[in-house]
């Protein structure tokens, strides 16, 4: 594939990824404050989080200082994100594939960061990375692709064979796994047959410096292309759950912030309560003009 087409395609797909990623994340971040819906255990509850306790265990809790443990929260997140603790505890049979799949992806993200750094370094004249670094990158990438491929293949098979999973697996979910399997497969090909630790930073350097004349081995080109297609597609799928997870944990499960008089949250809620309601249930007497406060405070049932 001519370098110009590959580089321009990379630009287009990365822009789609960035715009989609930012748009979807911002959309989640801008959702309005909601009623409390916390769920124990909340790890940041200092001295209590380990057994699921909360500040509501305290007599006159509103008179006591709120003590939070960031360390406990980080520990919980680390175990959950890196080792998929919940899947390990509740769905062990799936974990044997889900863990390598995700861990492989984490390794590849780390490899991508190093490769990008190497490419940027080369572009500003730092010279090529040391052989040991190149060997390390190649080895780590090979491990990441292999783990990812084993995981993706296992998940595909499990989703096809297990009755409880099969009916809940949409064509899109199968497609996602196949696409990722292609990413891992071409990656393995690139590691096995091309000088991965040189050609990939070289290509990324060309992308950074807009060098349209760059040439890369076909297998690396294929890997770059399919990876960029995956990235461009990612923001429009459930695979964005790695971003959603921040909100489900920090904004819902662990959001135990009480309403305090005079707070910013109070002003925001008062604004939301002033919105007109159009639910049609006959007991609500909503006419599209009455707001939440009108409906909640009206005399009913007399």
């Amino acid at each position, binding site marked *: 594939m001519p370098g110009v087409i590959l580089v321009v395609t990379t630009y287009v797909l990365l822009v789609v990824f960035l715009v989609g990623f930012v748009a979807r994340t911002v959309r*989640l971040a801008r959702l*309005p*404050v*909601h*009623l409390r*819906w916390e*769920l*124990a255990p909340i790890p940041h*509850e200092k001295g*209590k989080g380990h*057994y*699921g*306790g*909360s*500040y*509501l*265990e305290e*007599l*006159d809790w509103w008179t006591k200082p709120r003590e939070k443990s960031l360390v406990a929260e980080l520990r919980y997140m680390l175990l959950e994100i890196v080792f*998929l*603790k919940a*899947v390990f*505890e*509740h*769905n062990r049979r799936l974990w044997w594939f889900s863990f390598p799949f995700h861990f492989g992806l984490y390794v590849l993200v780390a490899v991508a960061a190093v490769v990008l750094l190497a490419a940027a370094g080369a572009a500003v004249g730092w010279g090529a990375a040391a052989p040991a670094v190149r060997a390390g990158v190649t080895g780590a990438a090979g491990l990441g692709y292999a783990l990812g491929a084993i995981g993706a293949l296992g998940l595909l098979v499990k989703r096809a064979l*297990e009755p*409880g*999973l*099969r*009916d*809940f697996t*949409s*064509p*899109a*979910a199968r*497609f996602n796994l196949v696409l990722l399997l292609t990413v891992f497969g071409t990656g393995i090909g690139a590691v096995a047959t091309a000088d991965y630790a040189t050609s990939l930073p070289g290509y990324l350097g060309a992308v950074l410096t807009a060098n349209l004349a760059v040439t890369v081995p076909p297998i690396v080109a294929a890997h770059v292309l399919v990876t960029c297609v995956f990235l461009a597609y990612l923001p429009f799928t*459930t695979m964005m*759950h790695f971003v*959603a997870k921040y909100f*489900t944990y920090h904004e*819902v*499960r662990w959001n*135990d912030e009480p*309403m305090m*008089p005079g707070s910013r*949250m109070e002003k925001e*809620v008062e604004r*939301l*309560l002033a*919105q007109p*309601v*159009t*639910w*049609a*249930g006959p*007991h609500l007497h909503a006419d599209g003009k009455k707001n939440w406060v009108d*409906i*909640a*405070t009206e005399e009913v*049932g007399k």
Partner: protein
Amino acid sequence: MSGSVRVKDISKRPDEVLSPVSLQDLVPLPPPYDRLEDQPQWKEISDAARAGLVCNLDGVIATNLPQPKNEAEEREYVDRFVEGLRKLFQKENNWTFLEPLTLSLEYCVKCQTCNDACPVFVGSGGNDIYRPTYRSEVWRRLVKKYVTPGGKLLSRFTEGEIDLNWTAITRLYELCYRCTLCRRCAQACPIGIDNGLITHELRKLFSQELGWAPRELHEKGTVLQLAVGSSTGMNPEVVKDNIEFIDEDTTEETGMPVHSPWDKEGADVLLIHNAGEILAWPENPAAFAIILNAAGVDWTLASDEVGYDGVNYGLFYDDMQLARIALRHVQAAKKLKVRKIVMGECGHQHKAMMTIADRILTGDMHVHRESCLPLLEDIVFSGKIKFDPTKNDFPVTLHDPCNITRNLGIVEPQRRILRYLCPQFREMTPHGVDNYCCGGGSGFAVMSGNNFADWRVSVGGRIKFKQILDAFADQPGPEVKKYLCAPCSNCKGQFRDMLQYYGALEKSGITYGGLVELIVNAMVDVKEPFIKWEMH
């Protein structure tokens, strides 16, 4: 059974029961409850009910939804359902839960990790429609196909097949009342998807848009409570009479003067009971009165309508009804100028008032609210009351109400009391925030029409019953009296039905009650045993 019912089947074959409950499939119980032939037969659904009500989900009727009069009515309800789906995602109509709902719509990867955390699914022996993910997936596919732009074109690829019709929405409505909203599934989810929330929101859609809700929760629940003051039907005069009677009766039985103050302006504590206690378990408000008076707490009850009944079934199905009742509770407290409201032994009251309603109590509606459990712990360890734990020297185990532990994180105060006052206290496995629901959660405990009571006891509460038996496995016979401590009215309602259903008092010596009864039973000044070893 697993995998035999598919998600898209929800809208198909309206004349058949989608996935019948089979007693043979249920998780086995230990002896002497292991023989199916010894267990009570389920109540037969009458021919009239079968003909007139929707009954094609699992052969159980919880909601008493009438069959449609004609096709036009069917179509009208289907259209209104779609409109309700839309409103769930509108900020003005559902800001209350828009963020968690959006997250649960868009990011579930359908890994089924939550399935085995659900006591209903597990207890049923793996009935597909009781998977926490089944109703969520039906809802998700309907939203994607009928509400999301381009959904009719794309949803078959992104989500999977589904059709919308009367059969689908009515089965889905009934299915919303097979989940107790215990949120154990949400705890297990690696991403934080909440199938309990989805059930909650679906119930809201049916109530707030279609006007459908179980009679026990709506007409006989929130509507009655707002009209006369209590879902029990007690108006202020009746409730005061009943408390006076309880005080007199308890004074006579215990030899301790018992008096419950009413409408004491400026009191430190406004205690709000679940009014069901006053009628079904009068020893509970009596025990509270004994403890608070003995400890010298400045407390009161409120006789304003709604102010004496902490029940708030709006929590289970309708945001507006929830808000209306919560505001009435706060108004009662404001009128009496009390320092704080204390929740009695009622789990859903705790959740409704302490967290769910918290963020709508703005401006001058703000009032301090806390659980009775830290207050009781403070009293027990204050030295103000003398205790003799040997009076409680019998096996005791603790049921953790989901709304108090998993949802509020109140875990240890009740345990510290039990460890101190009950020498033979033992935990269930699992317990605390990992507990199993009693099977009566989310309003089920007060729903008993048709064959639903049989379902909630033998399917919904099956895993819990097994847990209780396991906790007392070292002394299984009826000769040793055992106490199941359940500091929640709705849980007690479920346990009353469950223990009676299995004859557990006669066969295993198990009875149940609240926490305050155990505290009073251990008081040195209470000469006669306060706990009666009988089914009540």
